[in-house]
C-alpha cells in the first residue's frame, strides 16, 4: 500500500516536472522574435533630388531607445507600424509650413511591426522589402513625409528614406549592398558631407 503511494507520488512529480519543463520551453520559444520580410512594390527614386522633392522633411536626426509597436488585426490579417521619437540635429530641407528648430523632438513612424504568432510560439517582426529598422541611439539622414496611416511623419519609400551616418547600423549596409539604394546613400553622404561631419561620431 505504502509502496503504491510512493510510486504514485513519484509519477506525479515526474509529470509535474515534464509539464513545468514544457511550459518553460514554450515561454522561452514564445519570447523569440522571428524576422520576416514581405515583397513589395514601392516608389523608386533614381537620385536624391527627386527623392527630396517627394518628401516634406530631410533631417539629420538621432534615435532614442523608446518605441511603440502599433498593430491592427491579428495573425495573417495584421498590419501596423512602429512609432519612435527622434531628436532633430539639423534640418537639411523643409518643404512644410512648420518651423522645425534644431534639437526638436518629433514622432515618426517606421514601416515594420511585431505581431504574435498565435498558437505558434514566438512573434514575427514583419519588415517590408529592403527596409531594416532604425537602430537605437544612432544617427541618420532621414527623408520624412507626413503619413496619414500613422498621423505622424514617416520614413518614406522604405530603405530610400534613411541613411545611417555613424556606422552603427550594419544591417542597413548589408541589405542595400549592390542595389540602387547603396548609390543613393553614397550621394547623400557626399552631398551633406560638411553637415554630417559635425554630428557624426563613428561607432
Amino acid at each position, binding site marked *: 500500500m505504502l509502496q503504491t503511494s510512493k510510486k504514485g507520488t513519484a509519477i506525479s512529480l515526474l509529470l509535474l516536472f515534464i509539464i513545468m519543463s514544457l511550459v518553460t520551453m514554450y515561454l522561452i520559444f514564445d519570447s523569440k522574435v*522571428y524576422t520576416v520580410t514581405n515583397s513589395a512594390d*514601392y516608389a523608386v527614386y533614381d537620385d536624391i533630388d527627386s527623392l527630396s522633392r517627394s518628401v516634406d522633411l530631410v533631417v539629420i536626426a538621432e534615435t532614442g531607445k523608446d518605441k511603440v509597436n502599433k498593430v491592427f488585426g491579428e*495573425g495573417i490579417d495584421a498590419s501596423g507600424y512602429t512609432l519612435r521619437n527622434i531628436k532633430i540635429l539639423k534640418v537639411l530641407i523643409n518643404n512644410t509650413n512648420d518651423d522645425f528648430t534644431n534639437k526638436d523632438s518629433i514622432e515618426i513612424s517606421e514601416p515594420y511591426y511585431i505581431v504574435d*504568432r498565435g498558437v505558434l510560439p514566438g512573434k514575427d517582426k514583419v519588415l517590408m522589402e529592403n527596409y531594416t529598422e532604425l537602430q537605437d541611439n544612432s544617427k541618420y539622414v532621414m527623408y520624412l*513625409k507626413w*503619413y496619414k496611416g500613422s498621423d505622424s511623419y*514617416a520614413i518614406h519609400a522604405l530603405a530610400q528614406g534613411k541613411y545611417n551616418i555613424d556606422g552603427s547600423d550594419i544591417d542597413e549596409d548589408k541589405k542595400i549592398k549592390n542595389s540602387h539604394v547603396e548609390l543613393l546613400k553614397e550621394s547623400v553622404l557626399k552631398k551633406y558631407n560638411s553637415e554630417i561631419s559635425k554630428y557624426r561620431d563613428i561607432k
Partner: protein
Amino acid sequence: MRKKSFKVILVSFLLLLISTSYVFADYSSVHVYLGTIRTSGNDLEYYKDSSIASYGYTSHVDNAVSQWSSASGGVDITSTNDEDCECIAVYAGRYILGSGTYASTGYYDNGFFGWNHLDADDVHEGDNFDRARIRIDDGNMDDAGFTAPNANKTIGHEFGHALGLGHFEDSPSHSGDHWMKSGQISLSAPTSTDKDHLKNKWGN
C-alpha cells in the same frame, strides 16, 4: 593589319554577345525564386476580398490573372470564394503599408498550428509556401496619382511575386520597364522579358 583589326572586331563581338546573353538569360534566384506555391500551376486559385471591389480594383486584379495565365501554359489561375484557401489572396486598404509603398506580398505556410509567415528571402532561396497574400494600398496609390496602367502594373507585379518572380532592377538587372521592375510604371501587360521568366519558372 587588316587581319588584326578583324580579330579585334570578332573578339569584341563575341564578348558583347556573351555579356548580352548573360543579362537576358538571368534566371537566378534574384529574378526567379527557388521557392514556389505548393499548388500545381494549372490548379492555382485566387481569392478576391470584398475590399477589392470596394476600392475599385476588380478589373486590375482580373487583368493580372488573365495576363499571367496566358503567358505560360503551366499557369492557369481560377477564382475561388474560399477565404481560407491555399491560394493567392488579394486585399485592399488605405494607408496600411507605410509611406511610399503601393502593394506587398507575404508568403505563408499552412502548418499544424495554422498560418506561418515566411521570410521572402527564404522563399527566394527555396522555401515553398501555401498561400501568397497580396495587399494593395489605395491611399498611397492615390497620393502618388496612380493611373489605370500604373495600377495594372503594380497589381501585376504582386501577382508576379506570388508566382515566384523577383525584382528585375536587382543585379544583374534588366533595363527598361517591366512588370517585375519596382516603381510607379505605366504598363498594362507583362513584357516578353516578364513572360520569359514566368515560362522559365512554370514551363511554356
